[in-house]
């Protein structure tokens, strides 16, 4: 279990494959963050990754924050906050910015 965030140990989410060393892992997290925010923006949400805690901080307008240990959890929590699934194929997601 991580002492900072309390997440229990579990097998990594499939999206965490593809890296073997901490530098690659961190680089991948930062590369993903911009893309995650691109998907969250139409739903009024955003995510932050400060590199210190194990996971993404999901933020809603109004200040509510949820710590999510992987992308699966992030999309689940984002759907709760948005009141609908974060669907990359939805008209809302694909509407012109």
């Amino acid at each position, binding site marked *: 279990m991580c002492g900072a965030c309390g997440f229990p140990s*579990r*097998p*990594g*989410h*499939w*999206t965490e*494959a*593809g*890296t*073997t060393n901490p530098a*690659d892992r961190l680089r*991948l997290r930062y*590369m*993903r963050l*911009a*893309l*995650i925010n*691109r*998907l969250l923006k139409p739903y009024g949400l955003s995510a932050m990754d400060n590199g210190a805690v194990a996971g993404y901080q999901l933020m809603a307008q109004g200040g509510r924050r949820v710590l999510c240990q992987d*992308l*699966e959890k992030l*999309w*689940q929590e984002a*759907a709760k906050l948005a009141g609908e*699934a*974060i*669907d*990359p*194929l*939805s008209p809302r*997601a*694909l509407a012109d910015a």
Partner: protein
Amino acid sequence: MCKISDSFNRKETGGKKTGSNGRLPLTIVSGFLGAGKSTWLRHQLHEGCFSHSYVVVNEAADIPVDNLLLHKAEHVTLLTGGCGCCQNREALRDILRHLCQLYDEARQSLTSSSNYNDEQFPLAQNVPASFAQIVLETSGLASPGNIAALIEQDPLLVRRLTIDNVIVLLDAVHGRAQLETETLVRTQIEAATRLVITKASNLAEQELARLGASLRQLNPIAEIEAAEFGENFALPSFSNALPFILPRLSSTDIPITSLCLDIREGGGDWAGLSVWLSALLAARGDDIIRVKGVVATPTGRLLLQSVRHIVQPPEILPEIDLTRDMTRDPATHGSASIDAATDDHLILLGRGLDEARIRHSWRRFTLS
């Protein structure tokens, strides 16, 4: 249908294990009630297929019969009195956990011996009494997707097992009627990587071809073959055959289609793919029946596979040595070239896939 899918199938079912990251391979043999699962499996075992396997037989009924057919198996465990994908789910989970434990104990005893060499794995080559894979014959009422979910949701099994193949059998005689009326049969067929039409000699050649064409329509990428008492049966060409017109059945009324995304096109990569696909499966996991693809990552080539919204832990594939393959067979470029051509492509199978919208979404959310 995407042309590269055949080479993905070859990669899966060619009998060569490409390395499962130390996990125990699991083959699911499924099919509706009376499809002939045990008969087919008995013959495969007799022929030496699934060697060094531990066979788990699940019967929905309380009184077992199927295990009697499987005396050729080296190890058999029987699970009766309920389907392992739903009402007997916990019992199936316990059996699979126990097998993982047995496998680990045997491996530990092997590694503690002085002459152990790690390259000598798989285990069964060194310890004849043990096993190197699990074959699960499901009950006729099971959905392979539920079994994949059972494994994915269990913290032990997800680390120790990898689903190697999903083989689904369909009775040639009753197949058409079952396809017309049983949602479960269509669900089983959609989840398959390999489809076997059993009791094939009982059907006229033309009808057999139509059945094959119907299966191809339901599952655009699975291998399709026929069998009679477990032996291979020549399946007539069905590429020009007319599929049966299947009525709409509640949730399975929209036909499955496939599309192929070129991950590298426009500069896409693993970071973009993983974000986009995880969001897509979270939102539309019920519509996306299957995802397959090989993608380049900093670690190496990853084989991605999903059944419904459950993505298996990606398997690291060996790197391709194109130069060696070119030397061996410059005319055809050999299998390494086929592997290279299939890399960085993602195949999506699902219902109601709007190809234009998916490609638009892919470009918008994965490319910089």
